[in-house]
């Protein structure tokens, strides 16, 4: 066997197999997925509420929603994460995983809100007028006509937000959480090898994001049926 293959296999063994280090990566991956999934759920709910507030006629609700979006989007994720951990939830005894999920969710909510708002406002006015002219109420028009069309329109950007979110969770270690990045850090710490743990983590992230993009692309194609012409 060529020498570089020997040393490569040694490095792989040292960094992934020895001392069950792959288990550490798996555990980190689990946390990364938990945070991202929980956060996209929270973010979607917040996003829908904030988006509806922003397109409502009520100036107060509009204002609140606008402040929320502006503040959250204007602060780096890491800073928000630490604010949540060291300030807002400081007096509360809550698992770190939950704190991280909430802060990523609150953050994602602002981005989701903007995505949804753009989607809602992107539905042609005529669709709304047609609904109203048939006697449907404002709310009925919203959820029977505008939102279903907006959902289809925002799906690509929304899935992109999920992909972005997965990558953003890499800062979770700032509050001492072992996510995928931290797990690879810990292996790097123990073996002092930069290559294998970092590239392994990178490969896993890439699989996750590509897999998701692929999954959502299929969903989009199914939803796009009505656009065939």
């Amino acid at each position, binding site marked *: 066997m060529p020498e570089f293959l020997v040393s490569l296999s040694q490095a792989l063994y040292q960094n992934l197999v020895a001392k069950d280090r792959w288990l550490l990566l798996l555990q980190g991956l689990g946390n990364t997925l938990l945070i991202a999934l929980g956060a996209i759920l929270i973010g979607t709910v917040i996003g829908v509420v904030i988006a509806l507030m922003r397109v409502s006629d009520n100036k107060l609700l509009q204002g609140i929603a606008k402040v929320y979006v502006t503040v959250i989007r204007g602060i780096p994720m890491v800073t928000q994460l630490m604010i949540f951990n060291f300030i807002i939830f400081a007096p509360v005894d809550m698992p770190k995983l939950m704190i991280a999920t909430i802060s990523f969710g609150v953050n994602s909510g602002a981005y989701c809100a903007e995505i949804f708002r753009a989607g809602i406002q992107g539905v042609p006015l005529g669709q709304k007028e047609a609904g109203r002219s048939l*006697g449907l109420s404002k709310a009925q028009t919203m959820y029977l006509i505008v939102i279903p069309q907006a959902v289809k329109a925002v799906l690509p950007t929304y899935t992109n937000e999920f992909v972005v979110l997965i990558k953003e969770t890499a800062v979770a270690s700032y509050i001492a959480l072992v996510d995928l990045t931290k797990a690879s850090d810990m292996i790097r710490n123990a073996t002092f090898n930069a290559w294998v743990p970092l590239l392994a983590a990178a490969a896993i992230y890439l699989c996750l994001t590509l897999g998701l993009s692929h999954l959502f692309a299929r969903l989009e194609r199914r939803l796009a049926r*009505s656009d065939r012409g």
Partner: protein
Amino acid sequence: MIEVKNLEKSFKELHVLKGINETIHRGEKVVIIGPSGSGKSTFLRCLNRLEEPTSGEIWFEGQNIVDKRCDINKLRQKMGMVFQQFNLFSHLTVEENITLAPVKLKILSQEDARARAHELLERIGLADKASVYPSQLSGGQQQRIAIVRALAMNPDVMLFDEPTSALDPEMVGEVLSLMRKLAEDGMTMVVVTHEMGFAREVGTRVLFMDEGQIVEQNTPGEFFGNPQNPRLQDFLSKVL
């Protein structure tokens, strides 16, 4: 049936409707013509309050629809509207487009609505299109379905806002003939259009609007044969 009193509408600085008084009786087919920007579409859209009138009253079946206390959604069920751009719901099939409002507003059960939709589609010869999406249809087909969608609500009056202006010329005929059939069935109709032939043949009364006012109105014969107002004479000389 519809009584309009001193209707005014302004968009910020722009004074679009300058005091309109008009009564439309049951069974009438009123055609509104006029140069673009004369306020004819705005007038029509005020009738079911898609545009909020700035002042004035619009009485429909005994209720002033400008009054904030009236249930405008309920009244709109009785006023069908057809748009220039068809505005079929793009995410729903043809059948769903027609049944959505009657079912959601609890006027018809799902089964009855479906049966009605098929009966209406049958009448316009598009029964085979029930399960396709609007984007797969031609403009003329879409507009005929939009008319049928409004009819499914069993309206007392139908408002048409330039229903043929966005159509390719070869499709104008099919839409106009459907409207003509509707007129023959006795539907009360208010039609904003540029189709002078339709106005002459189908209309029971023709209104000429210019600069936010109804300048002249008459039966089609008198209207086209013996126009009084110089602006109408000028307009007709250009379009005929």
